[in-house]
């Protein structure tokens, strides 16, 4: 067989075929869905962080115009089990129940206490105000360390502790031993502030019951229609085969829609109770309280090294804020990061511990990067601190410790096997694009001059693990499911192609990329391919979209399913052309007989021949359709070098990014334009953590940054022009050679920016600025460092 896999489509910046409908909004966003008799659900939420619920009287709401029903938590408790946690990370984890509507106690501001169902959303919102709830305040639990004290007030009194779990990892030599022989140690505490994901489309759910047959269709703005179906069956008792879950077009998620939410279960329970369709749509400020948050950790990090700058060991102690409940993968998020703290560096000892702590705040869970940004931040920040301690250039320190390109595949101290990479190439390219030496010279000159505006340079040589995930690894990590992905290909009689994927796009451009992959393998025009997704009836198998997995696992499945189609079509072609399969060439969608090119059939013709089935090989099943489920052998490991130059106005504390260069290696690229877009968006979100965003709570546990006025999401005008480039080292773990790019920019950029801010202030004696590096914090850092110097002098 001499197939030529001609890449006509893969590698090409195709305009995204889904954009016309996404950008104009002429599509089925969940909130756009209208069905006859649709009722609107509204949720009354706790105004307090922690309280015992006394009386809940929904009856005054029933007297309001247009109200059809109103329920308290107790009213619905019969039909609603606990919301699921699929990742109990330790055997003895403290895993409290999580009622979709609170029954006895509310544990964070925004915890649902009652619902109203009305003819429209205005009436529903008005009626909420009539519900009477008596709260008996309980102490809020907000400080992560204080929460672990023996006499701390408890979030879940019946559990007797706020400690959910302690998860340790120790590999290589003991850290104590390498610390003993180390010439230098550096220890720092970093804070990962809480972030609010801010998907462009708020959450929404519509449930339509078919009472006669007991069937329910759930439309939800979710990343995970397949997982949601299984979990809703468990939570509500509606049998799985009677549930159809549809994720229509979904406007972003960033992990926040990788969740099984109370409102999804409530809407199903209420539609079931009333026998009528219901819709719930979240408002932005409601989402700030009720959609899970990201990050929220204290990191104690210590490195041990030789005077020459060779890393000997790393020790990491985390305290991770779970929030009030363990949601779908809440406890696992810091554990995903556990394997990434060593980054791209070689060392002899690694110790990690994570303690998960309950607080009376909105639960945390996956947010773009999910554990890996926190890990990358810690190692990349402390590498800069170590470089300063040793008087080494931070890039040079990294060179002395990273895995060299000829050492791949390389098994890291944390036990991961990095299949490929070339840190030298990405770094050299980035340094040249950035003009590193020139900027260093300018920095020295400004420092010497005592300029009030200082220049800082930050570097981040990151890697991450994505392409989630090998199922056996998930088993070892106690995750409740596998990490495979499914694709099937339907060859339609007219030669058009349907690619059915188990991934569930919410803005990434899967329809375009999967079309490019299928078009190349099948040799059909890009335009002839349609991608079907997000409906458990039309795309019944899938593990959905998160963790930069879709391309490396789901795209790989498309590739392999398409290859199977070609294999089947070859049998039909050989039969029709009266040749042996070995004598057929397959190029650009055409089977031809070697040596007699006029004897040919296109794969699209074969599709019709198979449909008619008039003349198939004896005994052949009359289809060339195929499916493939891929369980990845390994994670994939994108990497890259990011460089950031920041100007810091030391009078006002304002930090302004002057230039940003990144060279990413995400393996083989299917669509360069989409990769560029993912990098830009990722950078924006990572920079946002460094400089702008923070979920701020007051001492009572109220979310103070409760609207976009106070929670600062930067827009394009607030960000610099990004210089992006790539190196391309194919992944060895999949046939496409792809790695994934959904999270890389976010993971890499946060430490690059903070490193730059601290680098600018190092002449003042500043060792850290807590994120977000607000102007006031920077101003205070300069002031207290100056005061400290004076005191010392």
């Amino acid at each position, binding site marked *: 067989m001499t197939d030529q896999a001609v890449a006509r489509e893969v590698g090409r910046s195709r305009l995204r075929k889904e954009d016309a409908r996404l950008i104009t909004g002429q599509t089925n966003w969940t909130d756009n869905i209208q069905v006859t008799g649709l009722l609107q659900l509204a949720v009354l939420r706790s105004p307090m962080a922690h309280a015992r619920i006394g009386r809940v009287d929904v009856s005054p709401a029933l007297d309001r115009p247009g109200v059809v029903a109103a329920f308290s938590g107790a009213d619905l408790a019969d039909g609603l089990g606990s919301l699921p946690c699929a990742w109990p990370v330790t055997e003895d984890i403290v895993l409290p129940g999580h009622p979709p509507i609170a029954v006895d106690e509310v544990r964070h501001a925004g915890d649902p206490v009652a619902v109203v169902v009305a003819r429209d959303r205005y009436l529903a919102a*008005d009626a909420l105000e009539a519900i009477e709830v008596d709260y008996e305040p309980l102490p809020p639990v907000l400080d992560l360390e204080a929460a672990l004290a023996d006499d701390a007030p408890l979030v879940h009194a019946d559990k007797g502790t706020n400690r959910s779990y302690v998860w340790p990892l120790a590999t290589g030599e003991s850290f104590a031993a390498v610390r003993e022989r180390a010439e230098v140690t550096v220890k720092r505490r970093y804070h990962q502030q809480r972030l609010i994901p801010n998907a462009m489309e708020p959450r929404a759910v519509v449930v339509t019951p078919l009472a006669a047959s007991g069937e329910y269709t759930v439309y939800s703005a979710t990343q995970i229609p397949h997982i949601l179906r299984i979990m809703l069956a468990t939570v509500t008792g509606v049998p799985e085969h009677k549930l159809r879950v549809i994720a229509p077009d979904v406007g972003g998620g960033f992990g926040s829609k990788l969740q099984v939410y109370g409102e999804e279960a409530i809407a199903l329970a209420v539609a079931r109770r009333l026998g009528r369709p219901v819709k719930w749509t979240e408002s932005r400020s409601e989402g700030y309280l009720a959609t899970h948050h990201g990050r929220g950790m204290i990191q104690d990090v210590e490195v041990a090294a030789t005077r020459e700058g060779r890393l000997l060991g790393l020790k990491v102690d985390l305290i991770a804020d779970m929030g009030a409940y363990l949601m779908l993968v809440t406890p696992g998020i810091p554990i995903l990061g556990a394997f990434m703290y060593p980054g791209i560096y070689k060392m002899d000892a690694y110790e990690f511990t994570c303690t998960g702590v309950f607080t009376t705040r909105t639960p945390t869970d996956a947010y773009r990067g999910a554990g890996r940004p926190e890990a990358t931040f810690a190692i990349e920040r402390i590498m800069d601190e170590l470089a300063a301690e040793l008087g080494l250039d931070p890039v040079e320190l990294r060179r002395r410790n990273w895995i060299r390109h000829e050492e791949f595949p390389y098994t890291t101290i944390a036990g991961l096997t990095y299949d490929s990479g070339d840190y030298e190439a990405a770094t050299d390219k980035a340094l040249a694009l950035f003009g590193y030496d020139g900027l260093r010279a300018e920095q020295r000159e400004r420092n010497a001059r005592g300029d009030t505006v200082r220049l800082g340079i930050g570097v981040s040589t990151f890697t991450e693990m994505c392409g989630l995930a090998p199922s056996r690894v998930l088993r070892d990590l106690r995750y409740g499911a596998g990490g495979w992905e499914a694709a099937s290909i339907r060859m339609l009689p007219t030669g058009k192609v349907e690619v059915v994927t188990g991934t569930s796009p919410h803005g990434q451009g899967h329809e375009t990329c999967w079309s490019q992959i299928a078009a190349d393998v099948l040799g059909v025009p890009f335009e002839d391919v349609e991608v079907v997704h997000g409906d458990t009836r039309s795309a019944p198998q899938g593990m959905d979209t998160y963790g930069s997995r879709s391309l490396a696992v789901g795209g790989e499945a498309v590739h392999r399913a398409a290859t199977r189609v070609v294999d089947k079509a070859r049998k039909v072609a050989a039969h029709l052309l009266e040749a042996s399969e070995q004598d057929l060439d397959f190029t650009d969608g055409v089977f031809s007989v070697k040596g007699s090119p006029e004897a040919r059939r296109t794969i699209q013709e074969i599709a019709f021949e198979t449909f008619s089935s008039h003349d198939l090989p004896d005994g052949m099943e009359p289809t060339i359709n195929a499916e493939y489920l891929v369980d990845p052998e390994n994670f994939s490991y994108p990497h890259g070098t990011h460089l950031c130059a920041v100007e810091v106005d030391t009078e*006002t504390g304002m930090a302004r990014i002057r230039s940003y260069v990144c060279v990413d290696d995400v393996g083989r690229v299917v669509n360069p334009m989409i990769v560029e877009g993912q990098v830009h968006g990722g950078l924006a979100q990572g920079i946002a953590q460094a400089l702008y965003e923070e979920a701020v709570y007051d001492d009572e546990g109220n979310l103070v940054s409760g609207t976009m006025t106070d929670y600062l999401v930067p827009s394009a005008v607030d960000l610099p022009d990004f210089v992006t480039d790539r190196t391309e080292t194919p992944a060895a773990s999949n046939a496409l050679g792809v790695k994934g790019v959904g999270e890389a920019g976010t993971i890499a950029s946060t430490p690059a920016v903070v490193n730059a801010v601290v680098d600018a202030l190092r002449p003042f004696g500043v060792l850290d600025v807590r994120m977000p590096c607000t102007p006031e914090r920077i101003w205070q850092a300069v002031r207290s460092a100056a005061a400290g110097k004076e005191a010392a002098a």
Partner: protein
Amino acid sequence: MIPAAFEYTRPESVDEAVRALAAAGDEAKVLAGGQSLLPLLRLRLAFPELVVDVGRIPALRGVREDGGTLVIGALTTHHDVLRDPLVRRHAGLLAAATQTVADPAVRHRGTLGGSLAHADPAGDLPAVVLALDGELVVAGPNGRRTVAAGDFFVDYLQSALAPDELLVEVRLPKTDGWGFHYEKFHRVAQAYAIVGVAALVRRDDGRIAEARVGLTNMGSTPLRAVAAERALAGADGPDAVARAAELAAEGTRPPQDVSASPEYRTHLARVLTRRAVLAATEAR
């Protein structure tokens, strides 16, 4: 979020609007561009029984001259203010500050009068009109009256407008020949100013003959930095300006909120006043 129920009326004239306001007692709110009112309604922080939409009263739009005074209709959008050649020529400070208001979408909807009547000390334009020694013309059941900007801003989100009065015009003495600058300090483009400083400088023979400094977000109303203004009169050179700017926060009571402490705002007011005055001195 969903606003509470309210009645809605869209008068065609100022008189009709005033009658509607008067009939509603204390329970009406004026809707102009909606950039401040609609968020308050949606967050259920305001519960008016009646919304009086003045958006279709053409007489309230536009810019004209009245001798040494520039007269801007209250309903003139930020976008139209920015584009207006008379504003650029005779009230450059207003144009410069308006350019920093939020984003193009807001500037196409939001109005100068709405921004002033909302009386948010964190808004950019109240301090600017205060620095320009502007006057505000309001219409009520008994006709029109003129209120000096210094008397118009009473407290946080509270103006001198009676419930049955409508802001109709903003009168700004022309500042031809003055140097001006608006120094806005905010973390992202769409965020409120943590502190803003509006500076106007009239020079005479190289020295500063007269300076006016308006402060955004340094108290419950927009403020003038009176002590700094006094010290700036006759100031010659950057050092003198810097010394005068040290007085910029005198008499202010800056707020504590999620974006800054009073201490930091006090510091910023000094730094930004120095910068704004120096920029105004250099630019014309």
